[in-house]
């Protein structure tokens, strides 16, 4: 059936006609790039489960591959944390994988000071040499490591590496805030808040649906997995009218940093109206009523402290809200059947963060929300195979570089390294793994100067970011889709979950996972590292650790849409899921489903949740008292050590109050007329989100703005300063100034400027460099006296106009008419 003559002529005729009229109809403007894209292979599709590595939220992902090329990422519907939900940054996973300017191989700084590509072998040999030099040189504490690892397993491997080669100087500069829970509950980690069963969540400063450690889990647990009628009732107290605030049943706009006062005001109402859980307070708390200490003195109880000091009018005056708000919140909180109070966001970024969280956590104790569904749980650590202790030869007494007596309990690792900019840093070899402190920390500039003076700085990063560009060696790490990676239970999550996933695609460039590199270095250095880190490569190490999990027989691999209550129901009746056939089947299942979880419900015995000496929830924190007395005596205030420590640390509380939940005013630095408050929108999750053009374009998606950092001002403040919506203004403090676009928000507080974190990179890749500005550049950090962490919300800034909005009408933030 040759091409029929008539058809040929017709075709010739039509073509002649169209040719004559200028080739209309044919898409000669469609570039060949698009045609060639469509010519892939047969188009065979498959789906692979993995775990998101772009932030600590640990969501389960399903990656759709067509002919082994990943073309789509979506949430894994069976994963217990996110139940199929996924955040915008997670969706941009492929844009991070294929982002331009990813590091293609190791880089080394040549003597001329410029970073040049170098082969892996050479670079690893040099680093191994430097390490063994430090190790055998008798000063092992000269080797330190800064690491931000979403998974415990990787952190423990790195910790083991520093213990065997250095003196265990390892720290996560952006560790979650554990001190207040350690002082009151005696736990090492942040407890889990069972959002899946709570019927009322009272959040202080934490935008539950945008920020925090696992927002997608929060949304899925409080809204996603429930019917609309059972949806959680959210009460929210913060200084910014965020989308979560608008979503809340009731939002109280309070002055920045006064979250603790509001909590204590609510506690006052609970105690005065007797709406607190008397039985729990009597049996499981300490310091509620007057008590006599072992020295026979009568000590102030929490009850009297509340009734005398925190009556609603005073609290309303401190917080800048109405007394009726305080009373209303307290009553609604008390009436709920399963209330839980959480702190986060701006409440934990201030200098009075620890005091705030202690006061907020006290509310949970007053309503007895411990160890019950919908309350505060303490998921036990995941039973991995324990590692035998590192053979310490005379190193016990060497302190980690990062402990210093600057603060009462802990200290900021960055501050320990950066010092005051001139002192020689206490470290010769520094590893910086998957973290970018020069960009993210307020002390970034000083740290950068210190890094230049440290002889050997090795940065593990997928991009040449601000920190890596100062390092002597850059070892390119994989994006999570290219390598084995794992993430364990995120802080404040009540479900025990392990995400462990094999690579979805072959690494695009000559990059390796940091775990593989550490093991490789250990092998090169030989004894004693080689024996204490005997694993061949990172998957081998993971396999070894997971064997303990299989033996423990708890929880189940993520499979099918088992509801957690069903799993627990079976477990209580002795059904053990994991009694299946041996480790290999378990490992194969685990890797295919990329996750294991155990619905760690209430343990049945409340006292297991309290690791304090008294085995109770300590309103009066004995640990804090002991440490303050120590500090007082050490600073030569022998006769009244407690009072001495208070004056030493500059606290506002009296000797009786200091160990009880009380209100410490937020510290303020700088003299500007606007109080700079920071927040993290959903599109600023994780350090790598902003290499994706989509994330940058939808950065301010709920205000129709993208590619720019904005500052939310109230109408009065904008009117006073003569700013209009869309103008470019500079916010200045003594440390520098940043440029932002004004967005007049109808619900904003006068005198407060809210600026989003996430932009303002000076080096990451060409897409996000120079886009927006980084508010931490202008933050003058005050220090939290107890935890030593720098505060992000204590700066007062000056604002002045840079240039007016160039064109047309303002894009009204609240959407016009």
């Amino acid at each position, binding site marked *: 059936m040759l091409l029929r003559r008539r058809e040929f002529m017709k075709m010739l005729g039509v073509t002649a006609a169209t040719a004559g009229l200028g080739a209309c109809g044919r898409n000669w403007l469609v570039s060949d790039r698009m045609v060639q894209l469509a010519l892939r292979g047969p188009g065979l599709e498959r789906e692979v489960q993995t775990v998101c590595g772009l932030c600590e939220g640990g969501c389960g992902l399903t990656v759709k591959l067509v002919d082994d090329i990943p073309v789509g990422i979506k949430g894994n519907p069976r994963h217990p944390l996110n139940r199929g939900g996924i955040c915008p940054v997670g969706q941009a996973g492929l844009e991070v994988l294929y982002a331009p300017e990813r590091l293609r191989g190791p880089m080394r700084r040549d003597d001329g000071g410029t970073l040049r590509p170098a082969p892996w072998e050479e670079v690893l040999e040099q680093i191994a040499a430097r390490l063994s030099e430090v190790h055998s040189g008798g000063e092992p504490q000269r080797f330190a490591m800064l690491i931000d690892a979403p998974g415990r397993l990787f952190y423990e491997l790195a910790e083991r590496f520093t213990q065997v080669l250095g003196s265990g100087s390892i720290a996560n500069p952006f560790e979650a805030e554990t001190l207040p829970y350690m002082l009151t509950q005696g736990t090492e980690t942040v407890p889990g808040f069972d959002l899946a069963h709570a019927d009322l969540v009272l959040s202080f400063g934490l935008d539950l649906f945008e920020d925090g450690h696992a927002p997608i889990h929060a949304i899925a647990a409080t809204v996603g997995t429930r019917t609309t009628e059972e949806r959680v009732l959210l009460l929210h107290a913060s200084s910014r009218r965020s989308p979560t605030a608008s979503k809340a049943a009731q939002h109280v706009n309070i002055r920045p940093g006064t979250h603790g006062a509001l909590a204590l005001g609510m506690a006052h109402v609970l105690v005065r109206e007797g709406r607190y859980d008397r039985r729990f307070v009597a049996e499981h708390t300490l310091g509620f009523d007057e008590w006599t200490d072992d020295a026979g003195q009568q000590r102030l109880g929490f009850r009297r402290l509340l009734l005398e000091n925190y009556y609603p009018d005073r609290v309303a005056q401190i917080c800048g809200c109405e007394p009726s708000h305080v009373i209303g919140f307290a009553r609604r909180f008390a009436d709920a059947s399963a209330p839980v109070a959480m702190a986060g966001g701006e409440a934990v970024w201030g200098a009075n963060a620890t005091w705030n969280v202690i006061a907020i956590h006290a509310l949970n104790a007053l309503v007895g929300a411990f160890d019950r569904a919908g309350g505060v749980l303490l998921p036990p650590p995941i039973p991995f195979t324990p590692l035998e202790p590192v053979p310490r030869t005379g190193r016990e007494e060497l302190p980690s570089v990062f402990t210093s007596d600057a603060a009462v309990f802990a200290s900021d690792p960055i501050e320990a390294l950066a010092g005051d900019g001139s002192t020689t840093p206490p470290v010769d070899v520094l590893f910086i793994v998957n973290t970018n402190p020069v960009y993210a920390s307020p002390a970034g500039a000083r740290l950068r100067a210190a890094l230049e003076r440290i002889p050997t700085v090795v940065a593990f990063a997928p991009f040449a970011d601000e920190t890596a560009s100062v390092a002597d060696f850059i070892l390119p790490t994989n994006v999570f889709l290219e390598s084995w990676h794992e993430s364990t239970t995120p802080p404040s999550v009540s479900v025990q979950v392990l995400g462990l996933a094999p690579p979805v695609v072959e690494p695009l460039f000559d990059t390796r996972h940091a775990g593989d590199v550490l093991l490789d270095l250990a092998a090169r250095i030989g004894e004693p590292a080689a024996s204490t880190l005997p694993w061949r490569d990172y998957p081998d190490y993971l396999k070894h650790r997971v064997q303990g999990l299989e033996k423990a027989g708890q929880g189940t691999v993520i499979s099918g849409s088992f509801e957690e209550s069903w799993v627990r129901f079976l477990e209580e009746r002795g059904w053990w899921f994991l009694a299946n056939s041996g480790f290999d089947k378990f490992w194969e299942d685990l890797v295919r489903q990329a996750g294991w979880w155990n619905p760690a419900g209430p343990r049945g015995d409340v006292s297991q949740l309290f690791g304090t000496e008294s085995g109770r929830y300590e309103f009066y924190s004995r640990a804090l008292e002991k440490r303050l007395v120590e500090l007082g005596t050490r600073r030569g205030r022998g006769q009244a050590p407690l009072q001495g420590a208070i004056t030493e640390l500059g606290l506002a509380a009296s000797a009786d109050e200091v160990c009880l939940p009380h209100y410490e005013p937020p510290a303020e630095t700088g003299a500007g007329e606007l109080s700079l408050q920071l927040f993290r929108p959903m599109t600023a999750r994780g350090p790598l989100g902003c290499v994706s053009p989509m994330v940058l374009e939808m950065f301010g998606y709920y205000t129709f703005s993208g590619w720019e950092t904005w500052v939310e001002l109230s109408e009065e403040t904008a009117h006073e300063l003569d700013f209009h919506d869309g103008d470019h203004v500079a916010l200045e403090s003594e440390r520098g100034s940043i440029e932002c676009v004004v967005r007049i928000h109808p619900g904003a507080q006068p005198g407060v400027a809210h600026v989003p974190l996430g932009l303002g990179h000076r080096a990451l890749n060409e897409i996000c460099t120079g886009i927006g500005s980084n508010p931490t550049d202008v933050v003058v950090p005050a220090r939290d006296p107890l935890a030593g962490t720098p505060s992000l919300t204590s700066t007062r800034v000056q604002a002045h106009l840079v240039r007016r909005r160039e064109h*047309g*009408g303002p894009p009204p933030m609240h959407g016009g008419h």
Partner: protein
Amino acid sequence: MKSDSSASPVAHGSAADEFQDTDLLRSIEEAGIRFRVTATLVFLVILGGWVLFRRQILHGLGVTGLNQPVAWGFYIVNFVFFIGISHAGTLISAILRLSQAEWRRPITRMAEVITVIVLAIGGFHPVLDLGRPERMMNIFTVGRLQSPLLWDVTSISAYFMASTVYLFIPMIPDIALLRDRGVRPRWLYAFLAWGWQGTPRQHQVLEKAISIMMILVIPIAVSVHTVISYIFAMTLQPGWHSTIFGPYFVVGAIFSGIAALLVVMIVLRRIFRLDRYLKDVHFDPLAKLLLLMSLLWFYFTFSEYLTAFFGQEPSELRVFFHKFSGPYAPHYWGMVACNFLIPVLILSFRRSRRIPGILIASIAVVIGMWLERLNIVVPSLANPRLPYPTGFYIPSLVEWGMFAGGIGTFILGFVVFGRFFPLISIWEIQEGREKAIKETLERTQSYLPSVSASSS
């Protein structure tokens, strides 16, 4: 400035022998350096326009100032503006011919030329505006007649066809005159004269054709601009979706048409020294007509915005205040000044209704009417019904270039036409001299009984 002392007012005898309308042919015979210079200059402007258009084709419409809510801008504004001016021609010359106003004789051809050129330019503007210009033929191959854009395409092409014919037919005697005088390029005139010998039979057929076209063109012209207004009125956008748009655009078109005609007449009178033919008697009635149209335009605008404001619909109010006090306030109040204040002030007093005054008023009206189109198109798009941010629109170099190219094409069209054909219709002037006086005399006598009864 009375200047007709030289030629006796009444001339008779056949056109061929004592032909004294030589200055009408000046533009043809003396088309020397000035023609070439202006032609090349204007051609360069148009060339610049094409270069910018080529850039737009290669890079895409991003080179313009258009953006997300404001999807239409200069090209559509200019499209409506140029088609608006086209009403200068056929509509006015047709009405004047219909009403047998003798003072129309030197004006009609200029008006018809404006129409044809401006229609060509205006008709091409939607093609400039297309995202995929090479798919322009889709309108014809898979066109949907239910779309106002298709009504628009059909009515404009019909109008273009009608006004070209309406321009060409009255030109035939003049072309024959040029053919007989042997003006170069001879084959052009021979071909276009269509074998005209001036026999009474041919005159009779010519008169009949003109009268048919006269009747035909008026409804088409009115339909063209109503249909252009339907492009906006048929949508649900606040500020567009109103019943007044049809007549409002027609009034606006006639208004800007007359203004453009006056400008062209004054300019050509100045360049080709036609003051013997275009006297005050020609300008005064048109100026009065312009004044009348200015009042009518203001009436329509006032009623449109009053209904919008009084109705207090939120989306309408948003567009309303966007024009009254928002970012488009200068354009809006500029429009009202140019279209109403200036023309009324100048034209309502005899002292200022002189040629310079008329020129100022006409130019103000042309600018005012361009602003009016801008005020209609952009603010409605910039204020979406849903709570999107208010849009804005800043025309880019390419759009200004294309606008200049459009005006350049208009000037070039006139210059080239003037080079090949007489700008004032010679045979009508002669016919006017010979027959018109008798006819008007009889006509006035026919309806003034007292004059005929006294039979002196």
